């Protein structure tokens, strides 16, 4: 049962082959047994989970259940959930219990009736590409426990890859859903900016952050995205659009689909095995009837520097509220206000968060604002223009999700630029606000999964999922799982 896709789980629940409580217990048992090896979960609360599962069973019995009612999920630990500890992977919020629900929590748990198994690990305040910046320790990749699971939604990816949860929420500001999905052999989608409400999702970089899903398949992504998306008047950047069934185009043939290959995504930085796997996926798409066109994203090489101006600038301001006064970590034995601020923040934040606060404060400072922040905003528009021109020639853009497969834990902590460059293909998508997804397309010689990124035009989620789903019907990369975690108990 734990290996089933969401459609199968939904049918089993509706046909009473299993109750939501029984299903939750199966996963809770696996979490209790296997999580210590992976460190995917930060908080598990069996009692809360079972209360929610019982409520789902009542809905199932009363016939008021939806497609996802009773299905468990793991929540990335930046979605505030009432009564749950919400840490953002930080010592600063180690003991913060949210008094309110994020929009995503309301939609998935209260409306759709999904059952939270707990809160999963992440890079501290979503700042990182390896999950190594978490105060709660690095997450291990189920494919190779000496490797990172990716970040910042590394806990989400590891939990799904090891069957500790059938699906997980994530958030993506520069690749934080797509890169861990790629590193763990999963499917993950980041929708168009404004599709999923950010209300209650702890902010890292407000103009880039977007909630999304990590799951076993594009089809599963479609079901969960449909339940979490939608206009929310509490988020001023939420887009007022009618609700959408993201699975409606899944079966549509790919005849005549125009796939754009940007030369910039296949350059010197990309690992040869990664490029080879992606190019063989291109061959598969040709067999499925797609046409390949060359496109160019001439400013994409600027996306990493632009991102490391804009994201830290917003973060430096967003994280000012963590001052130790009203909630969160407060340093002991402070003699005055200044000491309380400086010590609480010095002790409560980790090195990467502090680094980005410093960068962000610097680029917004008087005398530097124009040279850094304003210039970065202008380049950001150029990057978006690149995509606009490219989508005049093609329907979707295809390339690798990450230049490499999962790297060793600790390997890049000394070389931050190398670490930052691991998001080089994903960041431009956030800067432009476009939807992007990652699906598995092969393995490297170490047996680590390789991810394929598909980028769509604004609001083209259903089409993107269709393009991913047809590939998954024709291939089986997405069904491969690390042997160690495949046994059913």
């Amino acid at each position: 049962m734990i290996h089933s896709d969401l459609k199968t789980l939904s049918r089993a629940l509706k046909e009473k082959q299993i109750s939501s409580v029984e299903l939750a217990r199966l996963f809770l048992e696996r979490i209790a047994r296997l999580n210590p090896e992976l460190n995917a979960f930060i908080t598990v609360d069996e009692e809360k989970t079972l209360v929610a599962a019982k409520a789902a069973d009542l809905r199932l019995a009363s016939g008021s259940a939806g497609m996802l009612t009773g299905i468990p999920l793991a929540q990335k630990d930046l979605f505030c959930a009432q009564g749950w500890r919400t840490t953002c992977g930080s010592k600063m919020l180690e003991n913060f219990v949210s008094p309110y629900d994020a929009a995503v929590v309301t939609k998935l748990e209260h409306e759709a009736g999904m059952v939270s198994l707990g809160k999963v690990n992440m890079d501290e305040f979503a700042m990182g590409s390896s999950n190594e910046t978490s105060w709660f320790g690095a997450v291990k990749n189920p494919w190779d426990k000496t490797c990172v699971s990716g970040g910042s939604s590394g806990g989400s990816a590891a939990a799904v890859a090891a069957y500790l949860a059938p699906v997980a929420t994530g958030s993506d500001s520069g690749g934080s859903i797509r890169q861990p999905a790629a590193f763990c052999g999963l499917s993950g989608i980041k929708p168009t900016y404004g599709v999923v409400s950010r209300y209650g999702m702890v902010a890292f970089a407000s103009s880039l952050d977007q909630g999304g899903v990590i799951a076993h398949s594009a089809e599963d992504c479609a079901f969960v995205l449909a339940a979490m998306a939608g206009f929310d008047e509490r988020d001023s950047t939420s887009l007022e659009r009618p609700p959408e069934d993201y699975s409606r185009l899944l079966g549509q043939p790919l005849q005549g689909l125009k796939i754009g290959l940007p030369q910039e995504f296949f350059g010197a930085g990309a690992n040869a095995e990664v490029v080879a796997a992606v190019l063989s996926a291109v061959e598969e798409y040709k067999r499925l009837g797609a046409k390949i066109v060359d496109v160019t994203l001439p400013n994409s090489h600027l996306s990493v520097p632009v991102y490391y101006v804009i994201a830290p600038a917003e973060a430096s301001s967003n994280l000012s509220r963590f001052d130790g006064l009203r909630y969160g970590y407060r340093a002991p034995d402070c003699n005055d206000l200044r000491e309380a601020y400086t010590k609480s923040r010095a002790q409560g934040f980790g090195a990467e968060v502090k680094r980005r606060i410093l960068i962000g404060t610097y680029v917004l400072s008087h005398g530097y604002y124009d040279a850094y922040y304003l210039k970065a905003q202008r380049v950001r528009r150029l990057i978006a223009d690149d995509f606009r021109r490219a989508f005049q020639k093609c329907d979707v853009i295809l390339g690798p999700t990450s230049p490499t497969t999962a790297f060793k834990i600790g390997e890049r902590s000394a070389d931050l630029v190398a670490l930052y460059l691991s998001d080089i293909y994903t960041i431009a998508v956030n800067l432009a606000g476009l939807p992007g997804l990652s699906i598995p397309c092969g393995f490297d010689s170490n047996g680590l999964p390789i991810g394929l990124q598909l980028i769509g035009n604004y609001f083209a989620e259903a089409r993107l999922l269709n393009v991913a789903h047809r590939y998954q019907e024709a291939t089986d990369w997405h069904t491969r799982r690390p042997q160690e975690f495949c046994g059913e108990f």
Partner: protein
Amino acid sequence: MNAWEIVIGLETHAQLATRSKIFSGASTAFGAAANTQASPIDLALPGVLPVLNKGAVECAIRFGLAVEATVAEKSVFERKNYFYPDLPKGYQISQFELPIVQGGHLNIMVGQGEKSYEKRIRLTRAHLEEDAGKSLHEDFHGRSGIDLNRAGMALLEIVSEPDMRSAEEAVAYAKALHALVRWIGICDGNMQEGSFRCDANVSVRRPGASLGTRREIKNLNSFRYLKEAIEFETRWQIETLEDGGSFEQATVLFDPATGKTRAMRSKEDAHDYRYFPDPDLLPLFIAAEWIERERAALPELPVAKRQRFISDYGLSAYDAATLTASLEMADYFEATVRASNPAAAKLCANWVMVDLAARLKREDREISEAAVSAAQLGGLVARIADGTISNAIGKKVFDALWMGDGVNADEIIAKQGLKQITDSDAIEKLVNDALAANPGSVSEYRAGKEKAFNALVGQVMQAAKGKANPQQVSELLRQKLSTN
């Protein structure tokens, strides 16, 4: 000393009369227990987001129209970053580069009566922002308390050009602005509760010289403090400069107890607020139709009303300005005129500005709490105008109305028999009696003492219980005293 010119500009924070806060749904009612009106958004919990209150935007549009400013088609909310315990997010959402109201002006009356003059004060801008909470340093035995009820209240910060040249002009401007924001219903103007507070930028220079170094006096929440603070500050600046000294640009606080200002921080330790557009809020676009809707809903504005009072009722500019100091007073005056007659408008104006105002001041009441309604006062003025009673008896009737001794002036006049005696036979008898009874005064008058004449008038009026027509009495007395 006279060779110095004082230059003043004001920044005024008007708390907008919205039911909920500018970026959250929390209530704005004053006086609730500490922190009971702070929502997760006001507390800046992790993950919360601001949503702009349309009501606050409407207030800003109305203000922009009332001061003939440009209401910006596009304005932008920015974050002003600094750490302070009563600023929960670590930044204040404000407007910086693109404020909602740009330019504009306010025409003010300065001074009293004959010496009064009109002056136009230009406005630089007005922008929307959120208020901070309150730090409470008393009551906690060495600790500080934070009340976030005020955090997130909608403010309109109105910035003037440095157009004022004296404390008196600054106060006149502040009063006119105070009247205007109440007039158009965007601010309750309650200065004690902090709904309307001013910062004054003050500098001095030799006439014709470029602007001198300015110091900003923060948080003046009464017109009296505004005046005292500016007067002290300008004296201090002039004395410092005349003694050969100098001073730096600084922010200062005014201590009402000592009447002095003292520096709070200098330019060197001024914050770098690191303003940048708030990514949680989209730029605010205001369509022309929205502006027109607000224009249509605006009441007649003070300046227009002042002009109309002058042309329609023949009032002096000073009287018209006094009567348009608040919408309530202007409405009361016009209702009084309607209840009497337009020809008696000047008399109505005097009654409202002098007798009613004095009574209100004595009882510390607002005009809305006047015990005599405009209709009652109008009825009273009508009886003075048509000669039924004298002005002096009018005051008696007014007192009776105030005490609730009758529903209108006519009833009181009838009940108390206050109708003026105009019958000349009756008056002649009263005059003859007075002359007979006061031979001393008669001879004093004839010896050239004018005072004696007044004493005789007094005697007649006393005998008539005030009801004799004073003009007739004095005419007849003079006639009798000169013929005999």
